[in-house]
């Protein structure tokens, strides 16, 4: 049936950089990608990054130990700012995860070939970002081992059920579903490649481990047929799922009555912000890796250009959100809404707002220029700035809305403590550790999809004849 996976060629402008450098064959793409794991001498770059990540991971463990030992009082949260770094970091990490799903699912459904060489790494990034995000609400409960009964619906001796009218419970459902389905999607994509790794690996242990994970995949016609169906269905399911996740995260704020949080625009604007920061993170990770592992033939300037364009578009939606919020705060004639916006611009946290406008609104305008979009170094800098900007955005939303309560007698200030920073930087360590382990043991680019791409770009000329 034509309904199945007819990933047709999308036209490439004649003078544009292709998604695949010429001269690639089935064997060359398979060997290049599997070789990174199986034969290449691990570069110093890997050790350096893994080392940094691993060190920061220790900081995370230290911070968590301290937190569990002394309680959430070691954090900077107080009255009235009861939500601090924990929620900021949670939203930041979840947002970063969104690009992975977008690249794997939405671009797949719209047959964008440029997704193929970046989707695997981006999906891994999603999974690890969700793991990092989960740490925050988990430890914000104070005693996570006692939190189960009000988070999960199971009959318990207190006769309690989760509160399904609360966005926080929606969040539990959304994020746990998102983590699970991301893992399922990622693993599904890996199965044929695990078979390749099984067949390519030389060592007995590696062969066994890849063999067990590949579960006996042999690439028969029926295998592929059901595989493609499952993959497409997962893509179809992931697309609304990924939109729902940051939507539900935005409901954590918007469903409340707090001025500056209660805005109907929050769902789409949070989703756009998530994709924005996610693509920034993909670029931050892949630009150096592409250089170090010499993958410029597989991750070409075309990929950088396309990702930069997505950032420009989503960046505009985010910026639109800021403007619309400010305008409607005035238009609504609500005194409190107006005050929040004014306080954000001129109050004690003015620096955070204007830094965020610079990072998220001004800097990305450089992406209108193709030169910036296709040059690794400037693009890398912009993507780092956007990462910072998106963190600041959540900082502004969380802190400025809370620190000025309706009653001036309840006003306060907020700042993260050293333990807040330790746990935040610690999750960056957790993320880097997981990501670099992934690079070391699994193919970072989908091998079979690259073979398909080779086949599509030059049918009939891709198989090297037998030795």
């Amino acid at each position, binding site marked *: 049936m034509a309904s199945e996976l007819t990933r047709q060629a999308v036209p490439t402008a004649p003078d544009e950089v292709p998604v695949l450098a010429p001269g690639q064959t*089935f*064997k060359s793409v398979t060997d290049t990608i599997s070789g990174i794991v199986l034969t290449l001498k691990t570069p110093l770059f890997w050790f350096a990054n893994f080392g940094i990540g691993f060190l920061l991971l220790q900081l995370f463990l230290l911070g968590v130990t301290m937190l569990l030992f002394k309680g959430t009082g070691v954090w900077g949260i107080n009255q009235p700012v009861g939500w601090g770094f924990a929620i900021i970091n949670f939203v930041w990490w979840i947002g970063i995860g969104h690009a992975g799903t977008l690249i794997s699912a939405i671009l797949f459904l719209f047959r964008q070939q440029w997704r193929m060489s970046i989707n695997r790494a981006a999906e891994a990034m999603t999974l690890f970002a969700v793991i990092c995000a989960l740490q925050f609400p988990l430890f914000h409960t104070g005693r996570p081992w006692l939190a189960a009964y009000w988070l999960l619906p199971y009959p318990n001796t207190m006769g309690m*059920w989760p509160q399904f009218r609360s966005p926080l419970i929606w969040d539990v459902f959304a994020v746990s579903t998102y983590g*699970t389905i991301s893992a*399922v999607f990622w693993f599904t994509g890996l199965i044929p490649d695990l078979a390749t790794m099984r067949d390519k690996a030389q060592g007995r242990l590696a062969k066994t481990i890849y063999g067990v994970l590949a579960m006996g995949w042999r690439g028969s016609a029926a295998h592929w047929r059901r595989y493609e169906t499952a993959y497409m269905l997962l893509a179809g399911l992931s697309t609304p*799922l990924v939109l729902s996740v940051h939507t539900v995260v935005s409901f954590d704020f918007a469903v409340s009555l707090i001025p500056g949080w209660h805005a109907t625009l929050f769902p789409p604007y949070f989703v756009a912000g998530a994709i924005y920061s996610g693509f920034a993170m993909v670029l931050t990770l892949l630009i150096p890796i592409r250089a170090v592992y010499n993958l410029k033939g597989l991750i070409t300037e075309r990929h950088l250009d396309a990702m930069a364009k997505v950032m420009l578009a989503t960046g505009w939606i985010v910026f639109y959100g800021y403007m619309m919020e400010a305008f409607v705060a005035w238009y609504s004639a609500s005194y409190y809404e107006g005050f929040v916006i004014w306080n954000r611009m001129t109050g004690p946290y003015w620096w955070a707002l204007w830094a965020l406008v610079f990072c998220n609104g001004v800097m990305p305008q450089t992406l209108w220029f193709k030169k910036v979009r296709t040059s690794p170094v400037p693009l890398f800098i912009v993507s780092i700035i956007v990462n910072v900007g998106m963190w600041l955005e959540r900082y502004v939303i969380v802190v400025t809305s809370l620190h000025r309560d309706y009653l001036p007698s309840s006003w306060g200030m907020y700042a993260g403590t050293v333990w807040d920073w330790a746990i935040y930087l610690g999750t960056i360590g957790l993320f880097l550790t997981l990501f670099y382990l992934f690079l070391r043991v699994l193919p970072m680019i989908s091998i079979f999809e690259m073979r398909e791409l080779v086949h599509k770009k030059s049918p009939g000329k891709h198989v090297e004849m037998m030795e």
Partner: protein
Amino acid sequence: MDVQTKSKGLHGVMAEFRGPEELLDAARKAYGAGYRTVEAYSPIPIHGLAEAIGQADRKVQTAVLLAGMAGLGAGLSLCYYTSMIELSWVPAMFSGYAHNIGGRPLNSWPAFIIPTFETTILFAGITALVSMLVFNGLPLPYHPVFNVARFREHASTDAFFLCIEATDPKFDAAETRRFLTGLGATEVSDVEA
């Protein structure tokens, strides 16, 4: 590292082809010649290959649809039951409870839509992977095709195979070998069971 297996008989005859088009063509011809227990192996999905040897089905779609509906029902009933329905005749821990929460109605259906949506996706997504594996007969610890050295080394990289299995009613070792050679195979080999 050849796997040494005692010859327990023949699993089938396997032929290697140059590329996806040749494999698809050979698969069509084998099926056309009346062979029914045929397997085609390739390192990339080939459009129409499963159809060519009569192996296309819609089992995964059906399973995912059913699972999605089950997830929808499960999520919705969970929300309704725990937030609205108090039963005196079940032990307290199993009964839902009908409390006024923030003045919202007991039947807060707009709020229930979201957990329901998530469970729908959760059930359907897990089923997509699991049903794909189950219908494909995976995980499978041993399969005879891996006894062929070329298959072991190249099937997941750049080689295309067609295997006619011995259980096929039309199978005859010598005749099938000849038939496959006639299809333009670059190499034909026996597969030990």
